């Protein structure tokens, strides 16, 4: 499947899952969908036949509230049936509101409490370096997540141990639950801070697939330091009435809104 279509199908699954459960985080799930689409559809060495392969690339959704994004990619890749997306956040299912590595095949780390996923990704990467494993580690973080002090502990660690097998995507959509990140508690300037912390920093449009691909290539070619890809994104991307509206951080669409959202995603891709 073309990655453009893969991302479109992910978005449909995301809004459908959140609509069905009546709860979830559409805004931040849609903003990082293109990044996750390129990773799962093109980049990472991951197979549903052997989800625990010790040499697989690792993926950590550090902004764990974007669980629906991760699940939609896993479902489309065959880690579990697409049909199961209907059980998202439901008592009867295993698709927890935040990713659970013990229950869901393909989930490499349980996340949800912000700032912890990036540390776990550093653990996977430092082990990979020490044991000379071939895999790479990818993490997706939120911009609001950077307000957690632990992120900066992890960044220090990543640079100190020269984790060039680690690539961190920062979903810079500019909004958090309480509003604009610059008004709530500004983590800006992000690229400068990441540079100061010892990262190879690339700034891209997080919805441009070619720019995401180029960043991945750059990260792989960079030796001796970790890479941070600061992705300018739109919260709620692909659904007009959700775009750049903070209140869609953690609100489910009603039936009418859901139908409208699917129509728009199909039309625009």
């Amino acid at each position: 499947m073309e990655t453009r279509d893969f991302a479109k199908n992910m978005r449909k699954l995301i809004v459908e899952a959140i609509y069905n459960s009546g709860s979830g985080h559409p805004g931040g799930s849609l903003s990082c969908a293109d990044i996750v689409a390129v990773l799962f559809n093109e980049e990472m060495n991951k197979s549903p036949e052997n989800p625990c392969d010790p040499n697989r690339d690792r993926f950590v959704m550090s902004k764990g509230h974007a669980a629906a994004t991760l699940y939609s990619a896993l479902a489309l890749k065959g880690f579990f049936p697409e049909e199961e997306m209907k059980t998202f956040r439901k008592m009867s299912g295993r698709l927890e509101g935040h990713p659970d590595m013990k229950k869901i095949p393909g989930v490499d780390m349980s996340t949800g409490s912000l700032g912890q996923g990036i540390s776990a990704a550093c653990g996977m990467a430092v082990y990979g370096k020490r044991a000379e494993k071939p895999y790479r580690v990818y993490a997706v973080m939120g911009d609001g997540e950077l307000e957690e002090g632990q992120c900066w502990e992890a960044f220090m660690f990543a640079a100190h141990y020269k984790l060039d097998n680690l690539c961190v995507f920062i979903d810079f959509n500019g909004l958090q639950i309480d509003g604009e990140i610059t008004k709530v508690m500004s983590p800006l300037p992000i690229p400068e801070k990441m540079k100061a912390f010892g990262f190879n920093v690339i700034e891209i449009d997080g919805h441009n697939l070619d720019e995401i691909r180029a960043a991945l290539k750059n990260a792989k070619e960079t030796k001796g330091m970790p890479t941070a890809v600061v992705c300018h994104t739109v919260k709620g991307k692909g659904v007009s009435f959700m775009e750049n509206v903070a209140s869609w951080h953690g609100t489910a669409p009603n039936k009418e809104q859901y139908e409208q959202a699917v129509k728009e995603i199909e039309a625009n891709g």
Partner: protein
Amino acid sequence: MADMKAQRDAYGEVLAELGRKYPNMFVLDADLTKSTKTVTFQKEFPERHINCGIAEGNMMAVAAGIATCGNIVFASSFAMFAAGRAYEQIRNSVCYAHNNVKIVATHAGLTVGEDGATHQCLEDLGLMRSIPGMVVLAPSDAGSTKAACRFAAEYDGPVYIRLGRLPLTKFNDEENYKFGLEQADVLADGDFATVMFCGPFYDLAMQVRELFAKNGLNIRVVDVPCIKPINRTVVKNAVKETKTIVTIEDHNIYGGLGSAVAEAIAEEDIPERKSVELIRIGAQDIFGKSGAPKELLERYGFSAVEIAKKIIKTVCPGCEKNFTF
């Protein structure tokens, strides 16, 4: 003088031993390698030792990440920063994800001494005991420290091991003492009362026993190095056969050994549980202060005479005048 050894020295030694046995074992520290003694492992296996700097929250989640790759990870710091500062990382990244991480926290309790209240962690057993699935150990000498670590390395899942700073009397064999879940050892039998202790209180428990022995009374002494899961049989037997139980711990009386024993008593389906007396020796819901460990213990009621007085007052009010202290 009895043979003494600090638990962290035993920890350093057993880490190196386990490192030879398990090629997939990693050890993490947070800028305290010489205090926690993980430096011993670092010297022998530098490629499997990772200093995380003064960032305990990050360290615990890094430990979880390394464990997801099929490794056994020991992570150490002082109890205050391991269990205290990094509580939520332990809860979510280690325990909820059931990652194979062993947290070995040194310098627990009042016996840290001169560093004072900010470094005297008196709440860690309570914090760790309340996390689902966490095994909580508080070994009481060099031998049980080594046995606890060997057990933890073998056990698949998170384990918290609490160590103190002081040299302690050695009473378990460092090579042959074996350790399992619900470990509890009756060191001396008796029927007048049962003293259950964990951590640095072997000497104190034995002094209490000797005081009573001088007066022709027998005190049962039980070492309880496994706080969770607690050995309910040992508690039940104490309830039935001695009727007065004393717990001694270098921890707040809320949340640790005293609480675990109280819960076990309350839930036992035996008639004696309604008449049993429980005396909890520990920090009485206070913060500590600076001072020599010995002085601090005296001040906060960890003395054989004080404990004996409490036992007599409970078991036989009025008998104190006939008792030789």
